[in-house]
């Protein structure tokens, strides 16, 4: 099976999210962009499938500025190909629709049996890339999958419902599967192997159209959540907090 894994670069939530007051959008000055966590799971699932059934894995991403290391890391983990698409406006942030459009353009030659993408990304404001990509390629989509297995020329995705309920959905390929979690957590790859990949592997470069805003609703502004009532904060060190909590728990009839 030839599998493609699109990687979306998203803001790292470890850093503070700040709003640029002049644009009303996210301030990207100190923003660190990292691969979407669920896309890392998608890559892991793809590598697991490759290990089981053979085939190839290609990772593909829009060049938002600092993507090479992530691509080489994917190669060091076992991906056969890495592709980055360069174009206007990508570094400033790209909607899911634009992302899907650009990926569809690059993947439309149909050389992939399966596309695994994270079922959502932390900064999605107009749906998820995987689902949109499937529609643009005219192939089926199943999201919220935690397992993908090959089954006689098709694949079976295990879809996750609330309460721990799962459902097996058979899908004809080519298809896009939205990954919620890989069968195993994403594997580690040693720095020396990534350095090797940086020396030996090549990233395929492609040109993409300028990123547009079509398909997304208009965002008029961004803000931090309302301060609102918020939590009543308890001051002091762990000991003082523990003491006060016991008092609170007694008051609430828990103790």
């Amino acid at each position, binding site marked *: 099976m030839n599998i493609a894994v699109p990687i979306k670069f998203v803001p790292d939530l470890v850093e503070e999210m700040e709003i640029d007051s002049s644009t009303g959008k996210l301030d990207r000055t100190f923003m660190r962009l990292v691969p979407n966590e669920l896309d890392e799971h998608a890559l892991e699932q793809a590598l697991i499938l490759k290990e089981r059934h053979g085939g190839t894995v290609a990772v593909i991403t829009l060049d938002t500025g600092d993507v090479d290391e992530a691509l080489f890391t994917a190669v060091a983990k076992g991906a056969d190909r890495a592709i980055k698409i360069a174009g206007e406006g990508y570094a400033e942030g790209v909607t899911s629709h634009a992302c899907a459009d650009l990926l569809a353009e690059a993947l439309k030659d149909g050389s992939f049996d399966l596309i695994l993408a994270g079922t959502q990304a932390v900064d999605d404001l107009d749906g*998820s890339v995987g689902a*949109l990509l499937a*529609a643009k390629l005219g192939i089926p989509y199943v999201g919220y999958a935690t397992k993908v297995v090959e089954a006689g020329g098709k694949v079976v995705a295990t879809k996750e419902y609330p309460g721990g309920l799962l*459902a097996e959905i058979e899908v004809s390929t080519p298809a896009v599967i939205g990954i919620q979690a890989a069968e195993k957590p994403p594997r580690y790859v040693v720095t020396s192997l990534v350095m090797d990949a940086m020396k030996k592997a090549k990233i395929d470069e492609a040109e993409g159209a300028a990123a547009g805003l079509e*398909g997304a609703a208009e965002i008029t*502004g*961004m803000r931090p959540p309302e301060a609102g009532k*918020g939590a009543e904060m308890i001051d002091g060190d762990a000991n003082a*907090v523990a003491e006060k909590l016991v008092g609170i728990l007694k008051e609430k009839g828990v103790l």
Partner: protein
Amino acid sequence: MAQDVWVNIETLRGEVTEISYTMLAAGKAIAKGLGGSLRAVLLGGNVKGLAGKLGAADSVTVVDHPALADFNPDAHLLALTDLAKKGAPRAFLFGQTASGTDLACGLAAKFGFPVASPCRTFKVEGGEILFEAVTCGGKIIADGKLPGPTGVAIVMPGGYKPEEAMVGGSPKVDEASPESDLGAARTRFRAYIEPDTSDVDISKIPILISVGRGIGQKENIDAAKELAAALGGEVSSSRPIVDQGWLPTSRLVGKSGKSVKPKLYLALGISGSPEHMEGLPSWETLVAINTDQKAPIYDVATFGAAVDVLELIPKLTEKVKAAKG
């Protein structure tokens, strides 16, 4: 038709899911603002009987077909496409769920409808539909406009009380048959895999000591278990803990786990992302312990303390035991 709102009703094993009611409540508000009507779209197998639960809507369109009995993404998408071809509404609401998102994007892309997600609340002002979306792990709210002629909105829970839409009523019911051959769908539902019920059902436990990434190492969960035992409760967790295999899925609170309404929820090292908070529709007391003062959970918690979870747990356990004597 032009100012109407449609809601894609989700069912799971013969029951209308809670998000459907959240959407009906949202849809009702939007329809009112637009001066249009609210239509519930109900796809399934043998589901006509459920139309009676959708009294919050003005009308219900039922598409009843064996191929739609259990959620089958491609078949459901075909049926919805057939409906939308005949005339699409001003706004079409879908749940941000395993049954909703697959369809929302597919349908939107097919017709070129713009998409907004994940929307928590809506307002209609000057004939425009405004929405509030929660993004970046709950740290940012994005405000936007849902453009016409048809806009697709993927709805997250929390902005409306589902109970408001759980009303009886006699909406006008009409039936539609899919025109496409649903047998040609490229996906097929095979089977359900039942959850493991051997563990405790955390939705029935009033006191939950919940651990998140802030717990650090697996071994620290033992201390949390001791605290839970001292309080007469149980341990639960957010997604990362379950993904690591440190606790079974039965302990997961959140989108893909259990929905809980505890008396006491002690959130240890949990940031309060929307996916987790989805599993907490209500609580009596929520205490959040997280050294990140900007963690979204502090916006909704009853009490909070920015102390180290690993320092607090043993001290709290000690004092609880002493208090119980």
